[in-house]
Each structure stands twice: as C-alpha cells, then as structure tokens.
C-alpha cells in the first residue's frame, strides 16, 4: 500500500489530505498552524494522520506541501535584509516603478512599498546597448568597494539587475561570480531569474527572490529535518504555476513559491475535472475572507505571466500599481475580498455594500458570539436558513441567532427600510454578484461562455453559494467534490513536477529563422532535463511543453500560444502565427491578419509526470440521510446529512446537505445527487420538471 500526502499550511490550520494510491480512498487530518515554527504544526498533523490511518513512513510514496511563507514575508514586510545592484544611473528603478499611482483620488494614499530601501540600492558602472553590445565595460575597479560596503551592511541576499541583461547576461554573470566568491549570501541575477524585457518588472521579480530567498531556505531546511525525523521522504513544494518542485529548485527561484496555496486548489479541481469527465470547469473556492475563481479547459488550467504580490484586494486582472510585480507563470486566478466573514454595511447615500472589511476568524461573525458586532455574510446566511444554527461548525460551537438578527436589523434593515430577511437577502445577492464578477473575469473576459462549463465548488463556503452563482451565469451543473475544506491539499499530491524556463528573442514571424528558435528550445530542454535528473525522474515520465508569447509588432502585451510541434521548423512558424491571429480575435474581438507576428519570448515547461490519481470518498451503502426540515429563504425543505447519502441518492431543492466542514445549498429548481466516488452533482431542472 502506498500513500500520497499533501500538507496545506494555512493561516489558521494546517490541513493534511491523504490518498491511498491503490484505491483512491482519501483521508484528512488537521492541526493548528504554528507560525513561529511551521514544522511543529506540520509534524503534529502528519503524526496524527499517520496514526489515524495506520501508515508507516515507508508506505509514503509522495509528500508535498503548500506554503504561505513567501507571501507572508512580503505582506508583512518581514523579508531578509536584501540589497540590489543596478546599472549606474538607475539606482531607483524599484522605487520609480511605472510611475502611476494606485488610486486616482485618494488624498491619503501611501507611497507604494519598496522591498529594498534606497540605502541598500547600489550602482555599478557598466552599460549595454539595446542589441546587447557593450557600450561601457563592467567597472572592475568598483567591485571590491561594493563588496566591502555589502559586507559592512551585513546584507543577507543580493539581487543584481543590469539594463539589457536579458539580451546579454555577461556583465551580470561576471559581477555575480565575484560577489559569490566574496560573500556568503545568495546572489540572484535578473538574467537567470527572468531574462525578459522591462527593467522594473524584471528587477522587482529578482528583488523578491533576494527578499524571501534566505527565509524560504531556512524554512525548507527546518521542514526537511522534521520530515526526516519521521522517516518520511523529502517534501516537494507547490509552485504558483501549478506544479511542484524540489526544495533546492525553490531556493534558486523563490518567486516560484508565491501563490503556493491557491494554486493547489485549482490543481485539485483539474483532477476532479478528469475524474468527473467534465473537462471544462469553472472553479470557485470560497473561504472566510476571499473567494477565488479560475478556469479549466480540456482538463488544463491556465497560467498568466502578469501578477502583483500584495497588490491589495482588487481582482487579479490588471496591475493596480500598489504591489510588487513578479513575472513568473502564476495560475490565472481572479480573487475578490468576499467570504463568510465579509462585513455588510450601508453607505452615506443608502447603498448596500459588502466588504472589503472582514471579521476574519477573530472576532468572526456576530453569530459566533466572540465579540463580533458587524453583520457578516455568514450571519445573513444564518438568518435566511441557508446555514443552520445547530450544525454550523459541526455543532461544536453555540450559535447566537438572536444577536445576528439584532445586528442585521440595526445596521442594515433599519437604514435600508427593509425587513431583516429582506436585508439579509440583499447582502447575499450583492456578495454573489461580486463573486460572479470574479468568475466572469476568468471566463467571459477571456472569450469563454460560462454556459459551456460546469462549476466546481469547494472551500468551506463555496458549496453554499455555488448554485446561486451558477444561476446568475446561466450554468446548469455544479459539482461539489468530497472534503471541501481540505480539498486544496489534494491538489498537492496530484501535481506534476514542473519548472518553467523563458528566453526573450524578439523575432518577426516573416523574418525569423526557425533553427534559432529550435536551438533556444533545445537549450532550455537541456536545463529542464538536468532539473529532472536531479529529481531522479525516469525518462518515460518526462515531458517538455513548448509555447511562445507573441503579439503584433507594435503592441506591448503578448498572448501565449502553444508551439507543440516536435521540431520548430518553417511549418511550425506558420502554425503559431495562425494560432496567434485566432487567439487575438477570440480575446479582443479583432485581428490584423495582414501583419506579421512578433515572437517575443519562448517558454518551456519541463515536467516530471506523477502517476495520475483518482479521488474517492466512499458514500454510505444505504440508509436515510434526511435529518429534518427547515425554512430556507422562506421555503420549507429537507436537511440532509452528507455522510449518510448513498450512491445514486437524489434530492430536489430547496434542500440543504450538511457535513462538518460545509453546507451545500440546493435551491428550488435544482436537483442534487450523490455519485459513486463521493462527489455531489447539482443539476438545474428544466422548466416545468
């Protein structure tokens, strides 16, 4: 018997999900997260899981985890004491940014944060031309003094980002080598981290590596000691691109670990897509403070090269200028500040608003009775009967219905001139709409019609809102996979080993020599193969995926198209040009077929395939799951216990299906059914049915 174990280290809990490789049966365990030493919580949760399912260390075939260490270090500005070295005259690239301010009319806005303060931003004399030729040699005579200053300042990591190093990395490499010889700290070169045009974005990505690298390294080392002490295999890390990587790769490229946790959820959903034979899924992951949406097409999730860390609460659709851009592939997620804890309020003109403030875990919603006084989305769901006072939080906590009612009455119903139920319903409609917008960003805006997709709902609050969202978007099917609360952790053990490589080339499709492109791909494949060698990945499980970023020559933003042919030749060139025109038309509504296409960057993903995984939580064999009835938005309907629903059991809405970690809301006009693997499917009934 072999087990795969995924560990998702969240803000409050460390969740463990286990899968038996032979049967697909799944298990869960959880322990409080221990922020001062994450390894503690991981050890507790792992020991608990291994004991509960009688697993011996030698039975564990794969161990993988998602971490918030990198994101938190950036959000809390608790990264390392890093320095950056720039071309002379360009010390301030990190602070000058792209010069736009995040909010047009905010009088009191702060300056955008800079991870490396000016006192640790240094310059060296050198200059390359835009074609990579040397205009000014690297000033050898300045290097010793630079090293002395860095030593005296006790810097813990150094980023080097010189102009046009993406065309010619020789100056960066030479300086990097001298620094490595003299300093016992990690050195990150922009030409290795991100050989791409645009100095601010490249410097920002490199600076993030230096800022979080030392922290990530010591964290991974500590974690490795911990798993070793249990006799477990080495632990993989989930990357923001949806693949996992080995610790040593992560230390070389820490920016890869930025959106580790959310990526896992999307990967888990892509597993579910395969298993449920629904290759086109919109995923909806809703927790206490945020909701996230992504799109899976033909069983594959999409990644985006544009991302801003700590960029505030706005949906991830456009740089808003307040965070730190990283240009590494990140799973394309749209995020909104809307969760169970989001606070509802009435503004000065009598408009109803939800969020962005959240009651969080402490004090939490009013009904938790832990001192919360502002009505939240959870309170409104309680009042409407979407959630039940007795089963919320598995009945472990006393729920205060009366206080929630009073808060909604005082803060919302009275100012709006509505009944308590009316106000609560308005809040739910508003929050559903905000989340539907997130789903639209990843679908409608990218040229996909949500009606061609099935909605996959998970996270503690996802299944509660899913059917209403589906209805708003005209979708007719929702799937609710098992263990919604720990579902993301399943993605960790179903991910392939993956590392992305990029080369900026700037070639026009009508002038390019295909063999130059082929050579660049082969060079990246050699790097990828070396990474897979280090991971001990056998040849038959290796895969290299080629794609490229292209645009019309005078545009500034690229679209990614696949370059799937085995060898890049003239025919492949024609094929990618055609694919680009099509994608441009699909995305923006027009194309310019008479113009040549400019190939900007070549991308390669080196993948080590992990054997595929089936997920299963055996449903009850027989019995009656109905445990009572209650009013839900004014209509009476049955309440079911999910654990007691046998395979093939169906129920028509209005109904609620409850489990310890989540409630599925089945509105009127919908039918819910349990399948053989423990997935619940909701179907919109035809009119009159």
């Amino acid at each position, binding site marked *: 018997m072999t087990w795969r174990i995924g560990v998702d280290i969240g803000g409050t809990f460390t969740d463990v999900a286990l899968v038996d490789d032979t049967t697909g049966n799944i298990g869960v365990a959880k322990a409080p997260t221990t922020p001062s030493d994450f390894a503690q919580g991981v050890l507790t949760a792992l020991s608990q899981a291994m004991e509960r399912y009688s697993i011996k260390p030698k039975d564990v075939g794969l161990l993988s985890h998602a971490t918030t260490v990198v994101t938190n270090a950036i959000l809390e500005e608790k990264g390392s004491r890093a320095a950056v070295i720039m071309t002379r005259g360009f010390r*301030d690239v990190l602070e000058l940014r792209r010069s736009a301010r995040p909010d047009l*009319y905010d009088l009191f806005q702060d300056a955008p944060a800079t991870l490396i303060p000016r006192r640790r931003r240094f310059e060296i004399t050198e200059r390359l031309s835009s074609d990579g030729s040397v205009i000014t040699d690297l000033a050898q005579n300045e290097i010793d003094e630079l090293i002395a200053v860095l030593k005296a300042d006790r810097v813990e990591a150094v980023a080097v980002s010189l102009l046009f190093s993406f065309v010619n990395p020789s100056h960066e490499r030479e300086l990097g080598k001298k620094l490595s010889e003299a300093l016992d700290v990690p050195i990150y070169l922009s030409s290795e981290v991100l050989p791409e045009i645009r100095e601010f974005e490249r410097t920002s990505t490199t600076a993030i590596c230096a800022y979080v690298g030392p922290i990530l390294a010591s964290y991974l080392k500590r974690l490795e000691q911990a798993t070793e002490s249990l006799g477990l295999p080495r632990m993989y890390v989930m990357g923001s691109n949806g693949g996992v990587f080995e610790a040593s790769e992560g230390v070389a490229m820490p920016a890869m670990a930025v959106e580790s946790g959310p990526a896992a959820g999307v990967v888990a959903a892509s597993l579910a897509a395969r298993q449920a034979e629904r290759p086109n899924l919109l995923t909806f992951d809703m927790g206490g403070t945020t909701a996230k949406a992504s799109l899976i097409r033909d069983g594959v999730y999409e990644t985006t090269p544009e991302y801003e860390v700590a960029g505030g609460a706005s949906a991830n659709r456009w740089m808003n200028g307040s965070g730190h851009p990283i240009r590494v592939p990140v799973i394309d997620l749209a995020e909104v500040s809307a969760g169970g804890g989001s606070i509802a309020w009435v503004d000065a003109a009598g408009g109803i608003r939800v969020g962005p403030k959240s009651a969080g875990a402490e004090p939490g919603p009013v009904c938790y009775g832990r001192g919360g006084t502002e009505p939240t989305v959870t309170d409104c769901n309680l009042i409407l009967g979407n959630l039940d006072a007795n089963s919320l939080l598995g009945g472990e906590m006393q729920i205060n219905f009366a206080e929630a009612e009073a808060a909604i009455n005082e803060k919302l119903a009275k100012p709006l001139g509505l009944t308590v139920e009316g106000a609560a319903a308005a809040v739910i409609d508003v929050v559903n709409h905000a989340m539907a917008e997130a789903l639209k960003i990843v679908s409608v805006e990218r040229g996909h019609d949500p009606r061609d997709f099935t909605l996959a709902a998970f996270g503690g609050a996802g299944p509660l809102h899913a059917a209403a969202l589906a209805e708003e978007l005209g979708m007719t099917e929702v799937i609710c996979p098992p263990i919604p609360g720990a579902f993301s952790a399943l993605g960790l053990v179903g991910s392939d080993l993956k590392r992305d490589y990029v080369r900026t080339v700037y070639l026009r499709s009508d002038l390019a020599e295909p063999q130059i492109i082929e050579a660049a791909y082969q060079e990246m494949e050699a790097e990828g193969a070396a990474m897979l060698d280090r991971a001990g990945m056998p040849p038959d499980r290796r895969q290299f995926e080629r794609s490229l970023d292209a645009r019309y020559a005078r545009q500034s933003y690229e679209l990614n198209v696949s370059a799937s042919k085995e060898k890049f030749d003239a025919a492949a060139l024609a094929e990618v040009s055609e694919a680009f025109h099509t994608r441009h038309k699909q995305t923006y509504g027009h194309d310019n077929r008479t113009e040549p296409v400019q190939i900007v960057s070549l991308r390669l993903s080196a993948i080590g395939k992990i054997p595929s995984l089936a997920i299963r939580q055996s449903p009850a064999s027989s019995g009656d799951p109905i445990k009572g009835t209650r009013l839900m938005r004014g209509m009476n309907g049955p309440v079911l216990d999910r654990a007691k629903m046998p395979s093939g059991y169906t129920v028509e809405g209005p109904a609620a299906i409850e489990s310890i970690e989540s409630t599925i809301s089945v509105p009127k006009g919908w039918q819910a059914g349990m399948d053989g693997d423990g997935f619940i499917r909701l179907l919109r009934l035809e009119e009159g049915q």
Partner: protein
Amino acid sequence: MSSYIQDPATFEIVKNSLYKIAEEMRVVLAKTAYSPILKSAGDYSCGIFDCAGDMVAQGPDLPIHLGSMPDAVRAVVKAFDKDVHEGDVFIHNDPYFGGSHLPDVNIVRPAFYEGVHLGFACLRAHWPDIGSATPGSYGAVTEIYGEGLRLPPVRLYSKGELNQALEDVILANVRTPDERKGDLGSQLAATLRACDRLASLAEKYGSQRLIAYMAEVINYSDRLMRAALSELPDGEGYFEDFCDGDGIVDGPNGEDAPFWVRMKVTKSEDSIVVDFEGSDPQVPGPMNAALSVSASGVFCGLKTAIDPNSLIPPNSGCWRAITVKAPKGSVVNCEFPAPVVYSNHEMSHRTADMVMGALSQFMPDQVMACSQGTSAVLTLGGVDPRTGNRYVSYETIKGGFGARPNKDGINVIASGISNTMNTPVEVLEMAFPVRVEHYEIQPDSGGAGKFRGGNGARRRWRMLEGAAATGALCMERMTSPPFGLMGGDPGITASVTVTPPDGRAQTLPSKGAFSVPPGAIIDMTTPGSGGYGFAAERDRAAIGRDLLDGYLTEEAARKFYAIEDPEVLLKVAKEEDQ
C-alpha cells in the same frame, strides 16, 4: 424615495457592472494599442455615458478627462441629435466642440439593445501625432489652425459601414499612419466591447430598467458628494498663482512672459462655487484652456479633498454640487481660434493644485501641498538611423506628489490630473534612437516642511550617432515653484538643458520646439512638490532616515531644516537600521 432603494441589491450590482465595463475597455485598449503612449504610458480614458452624454462610470484612468469627457459625448448628441443608429461610430477631437486638445481623439459609440438606445461608450486616447509642423503636434503656435488636424464630431462608421474617405483623410494628415491605424483599431475594439456588455446588461435587466439605473448611479454620486460637503465647514478661500508662459517669446525683455490665474472658492452647505474672476485674458500661445478643461482640474482637486478616501464613484453626478465660472476670453475660458494644446494638462494641473491652496484657508486637514504641477512632456521625432523609419516619441516625466496634513509627499509618481506611466527604458531604447543615461530621484527637490514634499526626478537622454531629432517641450513650474501649505516650503522648480557634442549647454524655455543634433544630450529635472507645515516641526528621526536614504543631503538638512549636526541624525538612523 428613489426607486433603487426598494431594490438596493440590484442597484449595487448594476453599478458595479457599469464600472467593470469601463475597466474592461481599458484592458482591451492597453493590450491591443500600437503606440507606446497608449500601450505603455496609458494616456487615455474610458467611460460609459447615458443618452444625454452624462458620464455614468469612469474607468480607473486619468482624472484629467473626468470633467471634460461628458462634453465630448454631448457634442455628438448635439450634432447628431436623434440620428444615431446601431453600428455608428463618431470621431472628433476639436476643443471647440467638446474636445480637450487635438491629440486627444474621441471615439464615441452608441450602445443599443433590441433597437433601444442605451447610452454611449467613449474612449479618449492621446495620439502621439495629429499633424502640424512639429512631430508630436506640440509646437508653440498662435492659432488652433497650426495645431494639427481638426475633427469636429463626424460619423466614422454608419450602421457598421466605414466611411473610407474620412479615414483616408485622417491617416494622410498624421505622421506614422500605420501606427495610428492600429491605435484606432484598438479604440474601436474597446468601445465595441463596452457596447456588447451594455447590451448584455439590458438583456438581463431590461433596457428601460437599465437606463433608469444608469440615471440613478449618477444621482447616487451626487447624494454622496452633497453628504460629504455638508459635513465640511463653510468658508471662502482665495488663491492666485502665475504660469511660466505660453511658449511665445513676447515679454518686454525678450522672454516668454508669465501670466496669472486667480480663483475664489466659496463653500456653503452642500454646494461649492469656484470663480476664476480676475484671471488674465487669453494668451497668444497654446496655454489657453476651454472651460471644460479648467473645470476638469477643479473637479479633480475637489474630489480628492472632499472625498479623501476615494469612496464616491467618479461620474457626472459628482459635479452637480459644483459650479465653475470664468470670464469669457480669459486664459481659463478661451475663445476661438485660440491655440490650446499645452493647456489641456498644464492648465488643468494648475487649477487642480490651486483648489488645494484655496481650500487650505478653511479646511486645512483635507488638502495637499502643490504637486509637480506639470505633465513634463518631451516629444522627439525624426528618422531612426537603425531602420530608416520615421518615429515620434512622446514621454511624460513625473515629479513629486504633494505633502499631506499627516504624511510626506511621494517621490516621482503621477499626481493631480495625470496618471500616465513611464515607458520602460529598455522598451524606449528598442523603439527609438535614444539612450537614457540616468533616471533617478533628485535629492532635496521636495519642499521642506513638517511633512516633506515628494522629490522630483532627473533624467538624461542621449541621441544616438546619426540620429538628429526635432524635440518639443511642454512644461510648467520652471519659474513658478510648486507651493507649500501651512508654512511648508515650495518644491524645487524644473529645468531642461540641451548639450550638443561641442559641450555648449543651452537652457530651454518651458515650451516649444527645438532641434537636437546627433549625439546631443537632453537633461531634465522635474519639480519636487511642496511641503506641508513648518520645517522646524519635522520629526528629527524622519530627517535622519531621509539622510540615510539620500532623499536629503546633509547640506540641505542644514539649509532647509536648520540642522546643525546632520551627521549625528544620520548616525542615529544608521544604528536604528542595524
């Protein structure tokens, strides 16, 4: 009671959808446009308008267009009255017909659902060239006829059919026409996207209901503005400030003569009146503003001060409580055929900053000191010796963002009516025959104060060998310093010099064309912003940190903050950093 109060959820949903549509227009424009000023610098605005031309939702773009775009749509409404059909597209740029200046080209497209006219999408984009004698169309001329191609509101598409003759005329009058065609295509795509989205909303909610909600969204901002105004003290403030000049050398000593703008702000209960009585008459050069341009700056300043946390959705409803008056024929309300190209940003920057000065006299806790007060435009045009192709480069360089009553200003960031981005140096050098030799923060340029003004920037361009260029400059705050408030010092003024290979540097006036020989360098420093409060009250530790980061030099600490021993403050800051 308003109808929406009975269904607050739908109101909130429709309102958010309308703002998302404006935002989506922005995404389509940026990702498909061809010229760097649009795709990299973001000099454009997107908006959704009702059938009368009032703005319902503004995208997160440029404050400068907030107040003046409704006039652009109204001009179309006025010119074509009921003769507006599905598939029509209108184009215009004339400041005497609701435009701002000739390079800002408006595309106005009506939205329909099942034959019902819902409203308009308008996208105003700054084209890097619209003809005239100077590449970039930023020459110092004395009539609008010299500023480039004028387009009154005209129909570019009729029921989906392109008016080819009109497009041919437009493209024949601009430099780099193939690039303009790409930009135009992206403006058309973005407005089409918006109209499709409006039609889907109508499909969902019903056309008449959507139209009613659009009106209500405007009312909603009006109510919020008035509620915010009612909370503020009544009062009256007066402010006057001079501009560097208009680009025409007509002063008594052979210089570009300055002129004055004067403003009185009267706030009473839930409304506010801004009167430009006493401002100088219109000037010969292109520093004359149409009233909607002067008002745009006023609106931007007032919105920031009255709604300092930026909670009120920006649309035409925000201005109902505000009246802007100016004498006809004055520099802030000019008459045909006065030239205007500089004033679009330079005068609206000025009026936005001056509003803060006037308001500080009765609500000093919700204002900011003067920001850089200029868009600092540099255009370069010629033939790229590397390719033999003609090019026009247009850049706006940022300076300081003004100090506030509770915090410092911000170094080198877009302020006031502007929010354009810089063009990455690597992108610039790939596209144009120039090399940037430095681009960095200019220490000591922010005005001293209890809260320090934001520092400006210094930037140097060098023309490549064999690349001669015609340059044009449009700046303010070279002689008129960005003012401080409540005892704060003014920021340091801007300067620009050109140094040919022979080393003889020449200082440029704030506006007008100049020639740049191959290998010459252009040096620009942008203005710092004003400080807030007395320098003597500044926290010593903050001075120490500024010294450590080099935002302030020891010499300036002695001079502007009367610090006798800056090295001690620096030492303390260093120890704190360890």
